[in-house]
């Protein structure tokens, strides 16, 4: 019996790869397995090779595996492109329709199943996904009733006839492959999982859900990969809570609409990727200057320009921190797990309102789109903090004075009042202004206002600004990374420690203002610091050098080919660098 296994489905985009994966993994989730998915896709909607890979495990996992156990192929291209990933003795389940062959040098068992033919017999080639996932399920020797239950849930609302047809497709696929294989494959028999269904979602959904829980009731956004699922989730949900999603004409409208709505008192956010963030920069400065709360999600993808829109990268760090002209207070947080995607949105809204600043939540494509198991989300941790937002009636203003919206308070954070409130009238402008918000060019006021705004964040540390797993007092290597890379590092560290390499691991979650004092001691105790990141210029390493130093200790491992790190790559790099 094994405790984990990797399965992949490949075919042409638009041919049912997604739905095969969905139904197969939904059924696995019913059994209580931990799942971690990876999507390989391109910007085309139909055509072009695409594949989805899932890691199935009895224990929590947050990384793609190096190799593959089972490959399901809808075409020969899928075999040719992916067979080399199979471990020796792996299995290929392929559509008999194209007379599949195993490439030379690949040690794999091939099962040719008439996937398309069976689906067509039942009325439509659309049911290929059912035949293919049924065959996969049967090879693993998993209980068919559980699978059928998942099918019933997927198609229930289409009526019993459709459910029955799909169940039949599953049965035929399963039966055929079992006969060919002579029963389930013993070497792929998974240990039983705990039977508890996990939450199973993508990072974008977790962030949408987190925003909703945080009290976000408006979203203004312009579609872009890999951010669109956030607005698509919220447009289904927000109307149930009185709010809505506005699809704007561009990202400048999206962010300025969000600024207007936040100014008027509704927690509003926008979400985009690199190209959209570039367009938002001037407006982010407006939010900083007018001390208007603002939450923006940046789902990083391959840049520059249109770059690699469907591929992994972590190359917006500089742009997010330095992108706006002039100097404003701003917070950049990078969740590193699916659970953090949820909780960080709550924190982002709280920080934005408490400190009256723009907050950017930066994920990467793998974290945003990789479907994965999520630990239970805790209702008790949903706490809403709105800072110095005036809620009581305000005392009358003296003639020709305004509410001191930008009062020089001790902590730099002034009282905030929402439009509509009596006796709260003040002015808001991106022009330098005095305490009432009126334009001012006074040198004295300018300096005080700059110091007030820029001083607001001194000492701000979000929850777990860094996350450290530091079992060694003096590790050979300290591995530092951000975003979705952490899970892969953990897996690599397990192997490294087996090989006698002592490592500590820090995930940097608050990118700006940089939590130097938290990271520095970890760097100090390590012989070497390895910074792993998905970009070409070492933006995270540079940030560390700028804020902490340690130039002589820091080694940078960069991957910018559009794919996330694999555990084996990290093991290899660390061994070379030790």
């Amino acid at each position, binding site marked *: 019996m094994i405790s984990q296994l990797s399965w992949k489905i490949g075919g042409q985009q638009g041919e049912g790869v997604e739905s095969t994966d969905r139904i197969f993994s939904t059924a696995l989730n019913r059994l209580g397995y931990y799942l971690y998915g990876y999507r390989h896709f391109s910007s085309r909607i139909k055509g072009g090779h695409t594949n989805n890979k899932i890691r199935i495990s009895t224990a929590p996992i947050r990384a793609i595996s190096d190799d593959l156990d089972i490959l399901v192929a809808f075409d020969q291209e899928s075999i040719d492109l992916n067979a080399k990933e199979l471990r020796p003795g792996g299995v290929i389940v392929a559509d008999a329709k194209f007379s599949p062959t195993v490439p030379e040098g690949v040690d794999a068992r091939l099962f040719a199943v008439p996937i398309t033919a069976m689906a067509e017999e039942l009325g439509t080639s659309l049911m290929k996904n059912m035949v293919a996932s049924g065959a996969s399920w049967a090879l693993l020797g998993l209980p068919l009733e559980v699978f059928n239950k998942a099918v019933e849930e997927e198609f229930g609302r289409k009526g019993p006839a459709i459910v029955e047809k799909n169940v039949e497709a599953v049965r035929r696929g399963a039966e055929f492959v079992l006969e060919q294989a002579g029963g389930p494959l013993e070497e792929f028999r998974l240990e039983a999982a705990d039977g508890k269904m996990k939450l199973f979602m993508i990072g974008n959904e977790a962030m949408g*859900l987190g925003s*909703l*829980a945080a*009290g976000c009731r408006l979203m203004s956004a312009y579609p872009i990969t890999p951010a669109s699922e956030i607005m698509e989730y919220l447009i289904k949900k927000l109307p149930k809570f009185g709010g809505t999603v*506005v699809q704007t004409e561009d990202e400048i409208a999206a962010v300025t609409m969000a600024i207007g709505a936040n100014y*008027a008192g509704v927690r509003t956010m926008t979400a985009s990727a690199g190209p959209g963030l570039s367009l938002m920069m001037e407006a982010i400065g407006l939010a900083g200057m007018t001390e208007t709360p603002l939450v923006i999600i940046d789902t990083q993808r391959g840049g520059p320009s249109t770059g690699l829109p469907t591929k992994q990268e972590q190359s917006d760090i500089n742009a997010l921190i330095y992108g706006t002209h002039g100097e404003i207070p701003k917070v950049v947080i990078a969740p590193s797990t699916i659970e953090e995607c949820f909780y960080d949105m709550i924190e982002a809204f709280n920080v934005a309102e408490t400190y009256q600043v723009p907050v950017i939540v930066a994920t990467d494509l793998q974290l945003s789109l990789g479907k994965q198991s999520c630990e239970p989300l805790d209702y008790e941790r949903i706490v809403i903090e709105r800072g110095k937002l005036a809620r009581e009636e305000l005392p009358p203003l003296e003639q020709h004075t305004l509410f001191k919206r930008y009062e020089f308070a001790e902590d730099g954070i002034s009282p905030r009042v929402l439009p*509509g409130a009596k006796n709260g009238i003040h*002015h808001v*402008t991106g022009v330098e202004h005095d305490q009432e918000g009126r334009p001012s060019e006074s040198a004295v006021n300018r300096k005080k206002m700059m110091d007030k705004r820029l001083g607001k964040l001194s000492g701000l540390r979000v929850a777990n600004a860094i996350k450290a797993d530091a079992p060694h007092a003096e590790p050979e290597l300290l591995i530092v990374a951000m975003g979705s890379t952490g899970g892969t590092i953990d897996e690599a560290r397990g192997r490294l420690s087996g090989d006698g390499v002592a490592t500590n691991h820090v995930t940097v979650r608050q990118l700006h203002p940089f939590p130097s004092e938290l990271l520095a001691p970890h760097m100090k105790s390590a012989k070497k610091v390895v910074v792993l990141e998905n970009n070409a210029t070492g933006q995270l390493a540079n940030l560390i050098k700028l804020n902490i130093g340690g130039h002589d200790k820091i080694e940078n491992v960069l991957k910018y080919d559009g794919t996330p790190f694999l555990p084996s790559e990290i093991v290899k790099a660390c061994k070379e660098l030790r």
Partner: protein
Amino acid sequence: MATFKEFRNNLKPNWCPGCGDFSVQAAIQRAAANIGLEPEQLAVISGIGCSGRISGYIHAYGLHGIHGRALPIAQGVKLANRELTVIASGGDGDGFAIGMGHTVHAIRRNVDITYIVMDNQIYGLTKGQTSPRSAEGFKTKSTPEGSIESTLSPLEVALSAGATFVAQSFSSDLKQLTALIEAGLQHKGFSLINVFSPCVTFNKINTYDWFKEHIVNLDQFEDYDPSNRIAAMTKIMETGGLLTGLVYQDKSRKSYEDMAVGFQQEALAKQELKLSEGEFAKLLAEFK
């Protein structure tokens, strides 16, 4: 009830003496008082330009944002609190050059706000460059040989974008301007009011006298029917866009807020934010 004086503050506008924007400011203050608003019920959102300063000169809530973006900010304010009366305002460069994309889409979206453009056919704040509203051949600092681009007709654009309220007025006609702003504020949906607001410093062609000579006032035609879109388009074309009055109004179309499914009637900004435990559990269940 507030009088128009209560919409004044003690800031002295930094506009040149004689600038058309003074009257626009006065008309907004009068219209707001005339329809019975209190200062705190009004939010004036403005762009960047000489005209953009207007939000600072009205005693009401206000936000002076960035160049060309008054409209999306204003729509955000209105969606957040639909109990507020929201005015967006700015110059012809602000709304018809850098912000043109937002103008067309704000019209299409039809959020219930009023957009007042101070159209002086030039860039005032940056000291006299051509604007999309400048006439062909118009010589400015940036077009020393005369503008060679065609002049934009905002009213035609508005009508073709599906506008539900289109009006135009002139700074010198405070009475008509005030009445049109009142009508715009009371219109349920997006209202565009383009105002010929002369720049006395940089535009020596489109002066007060020039407008007086060329403008056709629709108020003089008793049979003009502002609910007829084709007639409105024809009139705009016939007059070369130099007409004033209520050009078009469609009272039947609902505003964005009223059409958005589930969008609540009370101000969204007043909602309690925390989900109940039951609601949260229901949301989680969808991910199993």
